[in-house]
């Protein structure tokens, strides 16, 4: 009796609050008007495209429009799923993301730990300034740079490999399926390792210095301090970041791949996003590309929300 009474009163107050809302807009008319542009923007540029997903279930023809085009059910999905290029793009996406996670994820942690050991403030500052720089350049600029640096004919990297390390044959970093993924991983780390280390450095700087003092008094070495104070203090940040990067595993890095790849390395480098671009905007197969995009977005959505919930539960902080 009391329980159900409490529930109805709670429901009533929720209802009252909801109803209050509509008079609230009038009461706070200025705020409502200030908020209106945001609502209009999100509806037109975010929610209308979500409604536009229906063309994944239609045979969209520009002349017939979104509403006039015929429904085809799941045809676009079955058509896409049965092509080897689609399977290849899923495989490449997971392979590239997986490798980036395996090597790119620990890299900034190691960099932060190393920077923390540096006692010369000037040296530390210089390394930080230099290593943050590539983060501010677009993949168009960096792709231009890497094309030059990694060229098999007259690139600097191949020249060094030949003259210093005595390599006989030039390596086609961007042109052979054997090396393309490795090149993606290394260039990705090169661009982002410095910037990504900031978060870990900040966490380290938040550690109570008294811990280190006590440990040093007890005779702990630098390595023991790192092993038993710094790393344990970083664990919660690491776990949250790891979970979040697992959540974005469907994004293998469109900007990077699109600017670095070419038809010779589709076998190892064509990811879902580049596939959607080529089939959708290149070949104008709007419906097919939308279907593939939806497939990716749904998986990504489940992953991101799921991993966020886990991250929140573990640490009390998600990304919002």
């Amino acid at each position: 009796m009391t329980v159900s009474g409490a529930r109805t009163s709670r429901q009533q107050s929720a209802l009252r609050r909801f109803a209050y809302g509509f008079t609230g807009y009038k009461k706070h008319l200025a705020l409502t008007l200030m908020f209106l542009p945001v609502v209009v923007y999100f509806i037109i540029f975010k929610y209308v495209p979500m409604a536009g997903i229906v063309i994944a279930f239609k045979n969209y023809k520009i002349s017939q429009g979104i509403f006039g085009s015929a429904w085809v059910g799941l045809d676009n999905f079955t058509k896409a799923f049965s092509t080897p290029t689609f399977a290849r793009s899923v495989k490449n996406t997971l392979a590239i993301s997986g490798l980036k996670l395996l090597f790119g994820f620990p890299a900034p942690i190691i960099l932060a730990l190393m920077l923390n050991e540096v006692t010369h403030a000037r040296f530390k500052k210089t390394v930080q300034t230099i290593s943050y720089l590539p983060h501010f350049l677009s993949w168009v600029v960096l792709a231009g740079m890497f094309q030059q640096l990694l060229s098999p004919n007259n690139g600097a990297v191949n020249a060094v490999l030949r003259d210093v390390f005595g390599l006989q044959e030039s390596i086609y970093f961007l042109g052979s399926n054997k090396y393309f993924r490795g090149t993606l991983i290394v260039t990705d780390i090169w661009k982002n390792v410095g910037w990504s280390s900031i978060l870990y450095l900040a966490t380290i700087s938040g550690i109570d210095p008294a811990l280190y003092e006590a440990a040093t008094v007890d005779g702990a070495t630098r390595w023991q301090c790192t092993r038993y104070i710094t790393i344990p203090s970083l664990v919660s940040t690491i776990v949250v970041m790891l979970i979040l990067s697992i959540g974005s595993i469907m994004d293998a890095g469109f900007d990077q791949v699109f600017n670095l790849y070419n038809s010779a390395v589709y076998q190892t480098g064509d990811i879902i996003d580049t596939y959607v671009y080529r089939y959708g905007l290149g070949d104008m197969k709007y419906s097919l590309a939308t279907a593939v995009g939806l497939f990716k977005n749904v998986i990504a959505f489940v992953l991101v929300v799921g991993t966020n919930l886990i991250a929140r539960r573990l640490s009390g902080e998600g990304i919002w």
Partner: protein
Amino acid sequence: MKRAKPSFGKLLIYLMLTLLSATIVIAFWHLLNLSLSPSYIATKGGLLLYPKDATLDNYARVIDNRYIWMGYKNTLIRTVIGTVLQLFFTSMGAYVLSKRFFPHRTFWTLFIVFTMFFSGGLIPSYLVVKNLGLLNTYASMILPGFISAYNLVIMRNYFQSLPEEIEESCLIDGAGRLRIFLQFVLPLSKPILATVALWLVVGHWNSWFDVLIYISDDTKFTLQIVLRRIIITGSKEILDTSAAANAAEMDSVVSSEGLKAACIYVTTLPILCAYPFVQKFFVKGIMIGSLKG
């Protein structure tokens, strides 16, 4: 007290940090030397550790090119207009959402945050821009990403930390909410505004995909796309508009390697110049973003 002797581990750390920095510095240095090289050196290639027979011919050719200047103009237009408008409307929306008494506040926050996790995808978004008749307009470079949910949430969190009491006393004095926002809230929020403005500027400066898909009129190409045409698609015609110039490409003065390197420097120069001064603001910004998120 014993003097700490440099341990092997410490040396290794210094060595590895130096190596990492060196790969970045040498890459840029090599590219600079390449851009200053005459054709016979640039085509031969290899690692260029100092400028040999330095010449400005490559730069002369790049600076002569009208697409580069058009690219600069278009990039500046989108960056300035986009940043100002986006900053204004994002902060205004964030201010409204920071008010606990705003009706259905949780719903509206969710309405915005949801778009961070799910989107219509490339094709439906493209079709919206196309059906609105925005292809080949500057609006197509600014409107599709007009308000970032992430920026809005960060600004909202910041505004929530401002004291509400002063605003209330302003309200009693008869000031409207818009005036309070403009004259009281914005001036108090300079740190977050500066941070988000910097993100927006870099975002616009580096943005290329929207221009690639929405703009086909080459008088509206931005720097990134001009650069992409030159170095990735290798379009010679954008650098050399006449057949005579094409023939000149083969001469001894400039090489495609040197030209591309010069292009990269000409387009990236503003970022490289501003970087040392604004770097610390970005570092602060990343902390604002992760604080209390």
